[in-house]
């Protein structure tokens, strides 16, 4: 069994930080061909709120990747289950993640998108958990840094539940 534990970031904390990130991105990408690539499903809530705080034109697209352990059969290799609909060649891409921890998924995603010859690829994540990092990946825009906790809420799930919590909390298992 599991339960919602300590709240790490309130709705207000999140709103405030996303507003700052939106402003930062709006300045950095002024006059650029910006594409926001939202990684499904966890980053949906974050992406939607972030886009409301970006004051420059951009294209929003979605991508989804099969993660290890998500299917009954763990054999095989990672693959994109929903690809971007648009061509990113020559564009400036920001990958939007809910959380960057091991860096394994993101490392694959960056390698994959780089083969499509974008002008640039950067990473924006709501949460960064460097303590769990296996592959060192540079996070360009981060909402909050967290210790090695399993967290839920604001898009982050536990067995597909808790995504709709307006805050981010530690998941407690017992």
């Amino acid at each position, binding site marked *: 069994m599991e339960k919602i534990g300590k709240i790490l970031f309130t709705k207000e904390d999140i709103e405030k930080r996303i507003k700052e990130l939106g402003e930062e991105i709006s300045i950095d990408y002024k006059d650029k061909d910006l594409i926001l690539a939202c990684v499904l499903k966890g980053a949906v809530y974050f992406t939607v709120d972030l886009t409301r705080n970006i004051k420059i034109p951009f294209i929003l697209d979605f991508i989804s990747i099969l*993660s*290890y*352990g*998500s299917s009954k059969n*763990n054999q*095989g*290799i*990672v693959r994109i289950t929903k690809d971007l609909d648009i061509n990113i060649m020559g564009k400036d891409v920001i990958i939007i993640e809910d959380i960057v*921890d*091991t860096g*394994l*998924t993101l*490392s*694959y995603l960056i*390698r994959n998108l780089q083969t499509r010859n974008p002008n640039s690829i950067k990473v924006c994540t709501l949460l960064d958990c460097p*303590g*769990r*990092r*296996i*592959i*060192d990946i540079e996070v360009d825009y981060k909402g909050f840094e967290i210790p*090695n906790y*399993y967290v839920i809420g604001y898009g982050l799930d536990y067995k597909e539940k808790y995504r709709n919590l307006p805050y981010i909390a530690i998941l407690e298992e017992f």
Partner: protein
Amino acid sequence: MVKIRLITISRDFGTDIDEIINKISKKFNGEILDRRRIHEELALEGFNIQEFENKEKELEKGIRDPNFIETYKEQVRMIVKKYMEKDYIIFLLGRGGQFLFKDENYSFHINVIAPLGYRIKFLTNKFLLSEEKALELIKEKDFSREIFYKTLFLNSWKDPSLYHLTIDRSFFTAEEIESIIEKVIERQESKIYTPEQLSLPQKPKFANKTEEEFAKILTFYQIRWEYEPRTFPLEWDNDGNVIESFTPDFYLPDFDLYIELTLQRPRVMGEKLKKIKKLKNLYPDIKIKLFYGKEYEKLLSKYGIKGIR
């Protein structure tokens, strides 16, 4: 010791391979058996060739006549064996040789393919066809070929396990293809190599289940890894003998990164932590990450791996 005596050639229409085979056959005093030669042999056996051809055309339309199918298979096998008795090396072009002699250790099965553009170009140059006509012909031949084999052998000629070698005609010159096939013929014996003989990568002997799971995760995310590839000396005696060393569990060459994993709790990890500290002092350029205890358990549980302590 069994030498290769039969080479079957399955080929896309418009791959220009027959002339190459003809040249090789002459060089090795071989015998080419194609549709025409098979029919000639059947005529000698008293078959009505017109009737036989009609039945073959029915196969291309998907009409199954079990009696004819058995006769067809039996006769092709008999003709091939007849020539093999004469000590010829046989080149069987088409006719389903890859199915009929699939498990015969004296046979070698080659599939010759080519991109559509190559095939069109070949046909337009060789037969002075228009590109449209060439394409139409290729589509027609591919379709009837597919139906022919499905009707005759209940299988597709596209099954890669039917062949020892697939050659993309557009990738090699005629001379290179000749050389490849000649090397096959010149092999002293026909044999299947064991994985050890081929130096295929062996599964490492992981120290525990969690390491194996970790390797699976890396493989899943297409991250190259090596298991315990390097041992770092840490202490030497006065004679220069290594008396203490450390071997990290994994090395990720693309990231020039070593990884050490352990489920030990931090309080019993003193020895390992000391070693890693020494390693960092002696080899400051080496990047190493340590995942241990609860942190490592959390990492594994993220990927659905639990209870393997």
